[in-house]
């Protein structure tokens, strides 16, 4: 990327076709208005349930003294996990030189930004005293894993935003004069955000360099966010979380739900925005194979996570293992394992399954199973403490999420959907200049 800046693509015919195609769906359509209106109404309802929770306290949730973390923290882990895909697709695949992933680079960053931004929100929803959030910055203690988590997740959000925004700048400048069909305010926003981009070779040189630096920086940062998130559990003296496997187990699981999330967004971009020309069947085929790869890695870490304690059946971990394998959590545990790992591995090995619609359906199952998987990581361990649970109300023994708790969680998903929708619909969702550069290069290569 860095070697010699070639801005030949700017004069090519390719650029014009690509820009016209990609900018065509940009703007506010009727469907977009209805979709955003629907999400807003849903969000308002969820804000109401959050206000109820603030007034009455966390008693409105299913959490009690034994299971003191529930759906909120599980969903937080799920959000952080899903955001990791930005690093996998733009950074890892990009630095290796897999150029086929270029069209979905921006989609991956949009998913990363959306999920990373709202991961912090659901933590505030989980707090008993949300108004005391500033205390974390005023009295923060460096020993606390929460401090580490806030630091790395914020850094990741900033880096992901930069990796979304920097490659977008030339596209915003390219869009100038091609945006006749969009409202004036959007054109003016493009004008401002394009930072007076002039397409000089010097500018491109700086752009390439800075993107490359961020692509490298985000790799350790992305590994850190999910490793530290796994440490929120593994650092506690609790039998079920007492695992040195937790860091890689979480990171590998993150790639599975991240790739699934990207596939879902890809499907809707391809079908609703009519960008079949860029999100090709060949691309879906390759992303399908990528999902198989990450799911196989995750399967390996799952074997380590459950087979080893399951074989030993140590005194304090045995009750939980029994509950997971054959007891009261068996149904959701095996659903999470089969739906989230085995299903994509087996089905996506077949070429016919690596088509947009089957992949969408598989990805939705994978996403749901991945979310359930986080509940399975958080709840059973808390429900099986070292000392017996006695002399407390019967309802404290088991965790049953309540309606308000579920609604607040859905509210966070709604905000993510809104962020992703706005970024997908109002800005070029496929990198125009990168595609043009790619096409020009391939053309030249074939000519020689």
């Amino acid at each position: 990327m860095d070697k010699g800046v070639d801005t030949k693509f700017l004069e090519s015919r390719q650029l014009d076709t690509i820009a016209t195609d990609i900018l065509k769906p940009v703007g506010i359509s009727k469907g977009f208005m209805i979709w955003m209106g629907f999400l807003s109404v849903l969000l308002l309802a969820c804000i109401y349930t959050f206000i109820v929770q603030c007034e009455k306290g966390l008693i409105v949730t299913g959490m009690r003294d034994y299971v003191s973390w529930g759906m909120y923290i599980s969903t937080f882990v799920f959000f952080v996990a899903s955001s990791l895909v930005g690093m996998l697709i733009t950074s890892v695949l990009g630095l290796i030189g897999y150029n086929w992933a270029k069209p979905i680079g921006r989609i991956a960053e949009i998913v990363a930004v959306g999920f990373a931004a709202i991961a912090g929100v659901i933590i505030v929803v989980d707090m008993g005293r949300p108004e005391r959030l500033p205390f974390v910055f005023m009295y923060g203690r460096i020993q606390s894993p929460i401090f580490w988590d806030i630091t790395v997740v914020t850094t990741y959000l900033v880096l992901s935003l930069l990796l979304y925004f920097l490659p977008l700048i030339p596209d915003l400048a390219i869009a100038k004069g091609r945006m006749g069909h969009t409202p004036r305010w959007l054109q003016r926003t493009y004008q401002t955000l394009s930072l007076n981009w002039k397409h000089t070779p010097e500018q491109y040189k700086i752009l390439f360099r800075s993107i490359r630096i961020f692509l490298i920086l985000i790799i350790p940062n992305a590994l850190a966010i999910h490793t530290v998130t796994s440490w929120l559990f593994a650092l506690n003296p609790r039998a079920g979380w007492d695992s040195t496997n937790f860091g890689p187990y979480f990171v590998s699981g993150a790639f599975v739900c991240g790739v699934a999330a990207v596939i879902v967004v890809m499907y809707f971009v391809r079908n609703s925005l009519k960008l079949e020309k860029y999100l090709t069947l060949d691309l879906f085929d390759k992303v399908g194979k990528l999902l198989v790869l990450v799911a196989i890695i995750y399967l390996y870490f799952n074997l380590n996570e459950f087979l080893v304690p399951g074989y030993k059946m140590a005194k304090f971990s045995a009750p939980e293992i029994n509950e997971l394998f054959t007891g009261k959590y068996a149904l959701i545990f095996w659903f999470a394992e089969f739906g989230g790992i085995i299903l994509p591995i087996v089905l996506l090995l077949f070429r016919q399954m690596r088509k947009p619609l089957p992949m969408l359906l598989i990805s939705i199952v994978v996403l749901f199973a991945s979310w359930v998987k986080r509940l399975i990581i958080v709840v059973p361990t808390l429900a099986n403490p070292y000392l017996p649970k006695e002399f407390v109300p019967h309802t404290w023994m088991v965790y049953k999420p309540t309606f308000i708790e579920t609604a607040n969680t859905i509210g966070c998903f709604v905000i993510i959907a809104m962020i992703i929708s706005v970024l997908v619909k109002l800005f070029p969702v496929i990198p125009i200049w990168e595609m043009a550069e790619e096409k020009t290069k391939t053309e030249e290569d074939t000519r020689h």
Partner: protein
Amino acid sequence: MNKKDDMIGTRRDFFKKFSLIGGGIAAGGAALYSGYNYEQSKPDHNYVKVLTADNKLVEVPKDSIREVKVDVTMLQKRGREGLKGHRWTWVIDLSRCKNARKCVEACQSAHHLRPYEYHITTLIMQQRVDTPAYFMPKPCQHCDNPPCVEVCPVNATFKRQDGVVLIDNERCIGCRFCMAACPYSARIFHWEDPVKEEEDRGKPYNVELNIPQRKGTITKCLMSSDRLREGKLPYCVSACPNSVYYFGDENEDCVTNGTTKETVRLSELLKVNGGYHLMEELGTKPRIYYLPPKNRNYDFPGPEAENGYKEGKT
């Protein structure tokens, strides 16, 4: 001597005497006045003996003593510092507990808790199916390597110099990380308004008593720090009818039984009875000692206790 001379002499004398007396009065008055002023400004030489926080007996002039108003700042400062020179410790004799739960009741009434909200509770413990069960009072273990304190993001829960682990509910953000970190399940959370919320509203917050309790924050066993400050035994220790608890200072190597008020050597008590810590293999270094439950002659709690479940009175 003529009359005139006499007259003159007399007048002169008169003036002389007058000025002498007048000068004397003025000087005397001034002396008296300055003396009075001096006496007024002189410090009071009445001293009183005062015992400082670090157990030193000192004398201070009576007039320099000022009464300190008990406000939150002062309560917080002394609550976070702790009682200097002490290392409080607790010995729980499991062979004596008959599950009277008087300790639980005393604690709940002192700290304004509901009947199922525990700073201290008793548990029915059974190691194996074929060994008799025993009752185990379980307060916070006030670990010397407390996992809960390590993970707290805002320094709301802290370890004092006298060994007590406290929670400051004016600082707590309610993230419940400490609950996840505590292997003894010693911490509870106010999921709803505390039971005496209205009654306690407006009281200055005492971190050593954790009153007023607050919704959305953690509460836990405080080793009755407010009682220790007054030189008294903790609420639960004094309430026990079965001589289960010994409480004292590790630095003095002696502990006092809360029921019989008998004071014994701590090291001797632990040595003779085989004192141990609860789950010390976790590396938490608990401050609370347990004496083994020998001579167990209680009824089996029934099959439901075998798998760890037993719903008690609520």
